[in-house]
C-alpha cells in the first residue's frame, strides 16, 4: 500500500497489525522501511515521481506516529538522529524539506528546525537532540559562508556522538563541501538520505 502511495490503506493496515499484536519492530522494518526502500528504488528508476513519494512518506510518517507507543514499549529506537536546517540568512526550504522527508523514510529520526538558523542554534539543537548527522542547506551564494561558520561552530564543541555534517543546495557541490570541511555532499534528496544512512550503518 505504501508503494501505491495509498495513505488510507496504509493507516488501516497499521492499525490492523497493531490490533493483531504484530511486533512494532517488524511493522517498522519489514513493512514501512522496506516499503519505502522500494519507493526509493522506483523513484530512482523514474517509475514513481516526487508527489507520489511524498504521499507515501506522509503515510509512513503518520504510521510511525501510530507505532510510537508500541515502539517505546518494545525498546525500538531510530537508526540515527538527524538535525536539518537552512543556514542563517537563507529562507529557502524546498530541497531541505524533501531531504528531511527522505531521511525519515529510511528510518532516521529527523528534527527539521527550519530556515534562517544561526550556527549557535544548530549547535544547541545538535547537543539537545544527541544528533548523529547534521544536514545544512543553502540556496544563496551569499549564505554559503554561513555553512562554513556553522561547521566550524559544531566542530569546536565536545559532543557525545561523532556528528557527521552533510551539505547541499543549488550553489553547493563536492568541491565546496570539501573546502568548507563538510563530511559529505549530496545533489538530491534521495542520495542525501542514502548517504546519511550509509554513514550510520
Amino acid at each position, binding site marked *: 500500500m505504501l508503494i501505491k502511495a495509498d495513505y488510507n490503506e496504509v493507516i488501516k493496515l497499521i492499525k490492523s497489525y497493531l490490533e493483531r499484536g504484530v511486533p512494532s519492530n517488524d511493522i517498522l522494518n519489514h513493512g514501512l522501511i522496506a516499503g519505502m526502500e522500494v519507493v526509493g528504488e522506483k523513484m530512482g528508476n523514474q517509475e514513481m*515521481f516526487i508527489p507520489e513519494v511524498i504521499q507515501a512518506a506522509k503515510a509512513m510518517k503518520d504510521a510511525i506516529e501510530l507505532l510510537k507507543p508500541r515502539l517505546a514499549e518494545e525498546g525500538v529506537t531510530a537508526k540515527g538522529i538527524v538535525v536539518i536546517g537552512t543556514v542563517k540568512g537563507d*529562507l529557502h526550504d524546498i530541497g531541505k524539506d524533501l531531504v528531511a522527508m527522505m531521511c525519515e523514510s529510511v528510518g532516521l529520526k529527523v528534527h527539521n528546525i527550519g530556515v534562517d538558523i544561526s550556527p549557535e542554534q544548530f549547535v544547541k539543537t545538535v547537543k539537545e537532540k544527541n544528533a548523529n548527522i547534521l544536514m545544512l542547506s543553502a540556496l544563496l551564494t551569499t549564505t554559503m559562508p554561513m555553512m562554513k561558520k556553522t561547521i566550524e561552530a559544531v566542530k569546536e564543541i565536545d559532543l557525545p556522538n561523532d556528528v557527521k555534517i552533510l551539505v547541499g543546495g543549488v550553489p553547493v557541490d563536492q568541491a565546496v563541501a570539501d573546502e568548507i570541511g563538510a563530511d559529505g555532499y549530496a545533489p*538530491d534528496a534521495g542520495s542525501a538520505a542514502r548517504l546519511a544512512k550509509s554513514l550510520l550503518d
Partner: protein
Amino acid sequence: MTNLNEHESAEKIHRAALDLLKDPGIKLDHDEICKMLLDEGAKEGTSANVIRIPQELVDEKLALCPEKFIFADREGNGGWVSAKCEAGIWSVPGLKMYENNSIRPFTKNDMARIARLLDQLENVDGVFGFALDDVPPGARDVVGLRIMAENTKKHIRVLCFTPQGSDMMVEMKKVVGDYPWFSVGFTAHGPLRWTNLALEIFKRSAGYGIPTSINGEPMAGVSGPVTLAGSAAVGTAEILACIVINQILEPGRPCVFNLGLAHTFDMRTSIAVTGGPENHLFAQIAAMMGRFYNLPSASWVSTDSMSPDAQAALEKTCGFMAHLQSGVSNIWSVGQLESELTFSPAQAVIDDEIITYVKRYLRGVTVDDETLAVELIKDVGISGSFLDQSHTATHFRTELFMPQLLCRLPRELWEGQGGKDLTETAEEKAQALMQNTVDNGLTDDQLVELDALANRFLKQITEEN
C-alpha cells in the same frame, strides 16, 4: 492562450491576484515598508508582517508606473522599453563558467571576458552580472558592476546581493551620468512573500531613476499550483505587491513586470525546469500581463542542458521563438546553460545566431509590388535565372538569413576546413571575440573613479568579514 481570449485570460489572472492580495495578503519582512503600506491604506493580515493590499491601492500605484523608459547604455542611449516594444535581449546571471568542455566557478576575469564578448554580439542589448567566486559575496554586485562598466558599453543589469551594495552603486551611477545605465531587481520568495533583503535593496536603490525588474518566480507544483494559471496568479500577486511598494518608495520608478522567470518543478529529479514548454507558456503569460498592465514584461530563455549540445539548441530555439513571438519586452537569455546556473561563451555565440534566425522568421514575408517582382519574372522569362539580376543583388542581404556559424558547406569543403561541428565553431568564435578590446564609452577619469569606489567598498566588506 488556449480557450480564452487574451483580455479575458489576463483579467482572470489579475482578479485572482487581487483576491490573493486581499486574502491572505502578502508577507513583507520589513517593518518600515509594512508601515508605509498601512499608511497608504493597506490593512494588516492575520499574522505578523502580512499585509492585505486593496485593489484601490494597486490601481493607484500602477497608474504611477511609466509606460515606457529606456535601459541606457554608457552614453545614455537606448531604445524605448514598453509593453509593446521590440524585445531587448540580455545575457544572464549564474554561478559557473562552461568553457572548452570543462566547468568551473565564475571569476572576475570571466566577467571581463564575457562582457567583452557580449558587447560584440549583435543581438545582445544588456549584460548581466554574475556571482564572482573570487570576490566576497557582499561585494559581488559592486565589483561586478565595475568590471562590466569597463568591458562593455551596453546596458548593465546588476546581480544584486546586498543593500549596502545598492548604496555604493547609487554613488557609482553618478560617476557616469544621471541616466539609467544600469538597472536592478530582485525576486519574491514565494509563495506570497518578499524578504527583508529584497525589500531593502529596492528601498536603498529607490529615488534615483534606476529601473527595476520585479520578479515573481513561482515554481509550478511547489511555490504555486501545478496548474500554470494558478502559479501565474501567485506570481502576479507578488509582482503587483512589489510594484505598489516601489511606487511608494519612488513615484514613477520604472518597473518591469517579470513573470517570465517562472519555473516548473521536475517531479522526477526535483530541478527547477527552465527549458520546458511550460516556461515558454509563462513567458506568454508575462507578455500578456505586461500588455494588460501597460508595463514592460520580462522572461528568461534557458536550457536544462549541461553543455552547448542538441538539447540546448532545441530548448533555446523553442524558447527564443516562443518568447519573441509572444511579445516579451525584455528577454534574459544569452549564454545560459544548466537551468540558469552556468554561462557558456560558445552558447552565447550560438544563441546570438539563433536569435538572428528567429528574428528573420518572425519578420515574415513582405508582399508588395517590389517583392512580387512580376515584371522582373516576365523579363527573366521561362527557364531564366534571377541570379544576375540587380533585384537579387539589391534584396538578398535583407531577404535571406545569412548564418555566421551554421554549416552550409558542401561536405568536401567542410571536411577540408576541419569538419567542425557547431559547438566547436562557436567556441572558436567566442574565444576570438573575447580577445578583442571594446569601446566602453567611459573616460579614463570615470574608470579611475569607479575603480576607487569599488575598491573602497571591497575593502570595507573584506574588513567587515
